[in-house]
């Protein structure tokens, strides 16, 4: 059985199509990533799956329960961590946990084995008010609260946004630990580099799913030739390279620009055309998820 099944879900806010005919399946025990920029419709999809929002069209089920008909059942078996920190800032760490445990009619000790590895890290601050915690700790507390009733499916909406690089990496390690407990995780992120930490991902943009696959298969499916170029004047380099024959695409990518080229691209010719630019360096580059995303988005 699939933990999450989404069939032709659409949702419109006024004239904006937040979700446009989305289909998706997430297997039980899978860590599935929704990757896409802001405004891709990730949060809307989460809100529909957590029964906070009703879809206009289509069907969706979570853990076998229909989001429209069996919404009460879904609320018992899912954990939701919204993008914004939304615990009670004026309650302490411990009080927040106890409160959410009571909301779900359980006790902390019932699911302690599940949250222990995460809770251990914030336990020294258990009497501190949640509002006074650092960003990384807030996120850990929010995760603990979302797990307090031992959910079958965990929804994490941009859990790593606004968190430092070390904490982000730690957070993904924690998710890997949860996977071992057979919890299905649907996680969204705007960071393409985090995609590789998921088993399968869906790239989405403007309410549509562009592709769904494992991160490796997505990268392998990239069939264009790709170069990384850099020079002293990066801005000039960008505008000039776009005009050279044989160049399909050129876009900024970290410290360099990525150059997508036609089959008949000649490196020497390209360097020659741009000879007025100082310190031009051209290297073959291996494609990443972001390159694939840009390619699919432009199509």
């Amino acid at each position: 059985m699939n933990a999450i099944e989404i069939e032709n879900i659409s949702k419109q806010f006024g004239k904006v199509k937040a979700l446009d005919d989305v289909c998706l399946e997430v297997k039980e025990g899978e860590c599935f990533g929704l990757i896409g920029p802001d405004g891709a419709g990730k949060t809307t999809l989460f809100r529909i799956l957590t029964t906070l929002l009703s879809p206009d069209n289509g069907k969706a089920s979570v853990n076998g329960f229909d989001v429209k008909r069996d919404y009460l059942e879904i609320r018992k078996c899912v954990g939701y961590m919204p993008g914004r920190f939304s615990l009670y800032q004026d309650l302490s760490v411990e009080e927040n946990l106890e409160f959410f445990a009571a909301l779900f009619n359980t006790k902390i000790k019932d699911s302690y084995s599940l949250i222990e590895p995460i809770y251990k890290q914030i336990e020294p601050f258990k009497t501190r008010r949640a509002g006074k915690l650092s960003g990384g700790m807030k996120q850990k507390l929010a995760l603990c609260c979302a797990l307090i009733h031992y959910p079958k499916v965990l929804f994490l909406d941009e859990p790593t946004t606004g968190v430092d690089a070390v904490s982000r990496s730690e957070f993904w390690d924690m998710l890997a630990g949860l996977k071992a407990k057979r919890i299905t995780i649907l996680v969204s992120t705007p960071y393409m580099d985090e995609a590789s930490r998921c088993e399968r991902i869906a790239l989405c943009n403007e309410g549509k799913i562009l592709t769904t696959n494992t991160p490796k298969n997505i990268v392998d499916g990239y069939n264009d030739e790709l170069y990384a170029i850099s020079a002293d004047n990066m801005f000039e380099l960008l505008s000039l390279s776009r005009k050279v024959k044989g160049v399909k695409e050129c876009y900024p990518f970290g410290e360099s620009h990525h150059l997508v080229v036609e089959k008949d691209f000649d490196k020497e010719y390209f360097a020659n055309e741009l000879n007025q630019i100082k310190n031009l360096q051209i290297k073959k580059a291996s494609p990443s998820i972001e390159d694939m995303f840009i390619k699919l988005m432009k199509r």
Partner: protein
Amino acid sequence: MKQLFILLQKEFIQIKRDPFISKLIIMFPILVMLVMPWVTTMDIRNVCVTIVDKDNSSLSRRMTSDIKASEYFTLTPSASSYNEAKAMLEDLKTDIILCIPENFERNLTNSTPEKINISANAVNATKGSLGSQYLVQTIMSSISKQNQEKGLSTPLELVTIKNYYNETLNYKYLMIPALMIILLIVICGFLSAVNIVIEKENGTIEQINVSPINRFTFILAKLIPFWIIGLFVISIAMLITWLVYGLAPVGSIGYIYLASILFILVFSGFGVTIANKSDNIQQTMFVMFFFLLTFMLLSGLLTPISSMPKWAQYATIILPPRYFIDIMRGVYLKGSGFMDLWYNFLALGIFAVAFNLLAAKTYKKQG
């Protein structure tokens, strides 16, 4: 039940830890009850009177000293002519001009005298008209006293006045019940509304919405603290009224509490309904302010409903404070019992049920 208890516990912890709300609940009723009854008075005092005395007789001097002795008036230096006094009126140096014509006393006994003229600044209509009336009464009593002393025939005093229920016409006694009601509207209506909207603004309501908790339980947990706070506030207000103003209800205090409970139910339900329908604190506050003004000015808290235009009198039927103020003034001043007031209790009861149902109905866990 256990969930309700946990939710209530959370609400009380939050109220206790809020540095502002917890102080407000105690300080607000104390300040309002200590300060407002003194200032919300329609009693006219210290009206400045300028006398233009062209008669200069024993009668006119008696009038002057009677006016001077009255607690309602303050005498300004007298003016020699009406025009001079008029200039003072325009400069706001005086409120009322009393012009006693020449030979007034002499003409009073043998012929019809020229009339005494009173001119008042009526920018503040109440001050102008009440001030003139007081002045007429003072002058009339001066004249009759003088006539009595001289053994002249005096018009008999045909009218005596007794003011029941508030014998000294103490304006505070009229205002205090109204102030108590305003206190309850602000504490129970505003605070409960803001309390819910804050959960919306902070996003914490999302976490509640995805939990299996019953929405009625959630709303009940939001309402109960404000019922308790409301009863606490009305108790403080009644205590201060008794200690400071010596005003205790003539009737049973039980009726006051019964009416307060119903009224608190009405307004906490009302506040929560408004909060459910708004997205942020600004919206809630503006809507609440609109209703607060309507309730204060239109339900007979400050001005009598019977002097409003007919259409406004009909409109007051749907305003809950109108029934509460009848109970409060009735029990406090007249000692009315349940049989005199039952329809007010019934009306408040209906409002309480309606608004609380509305509060639970308008709260939806699903957007």
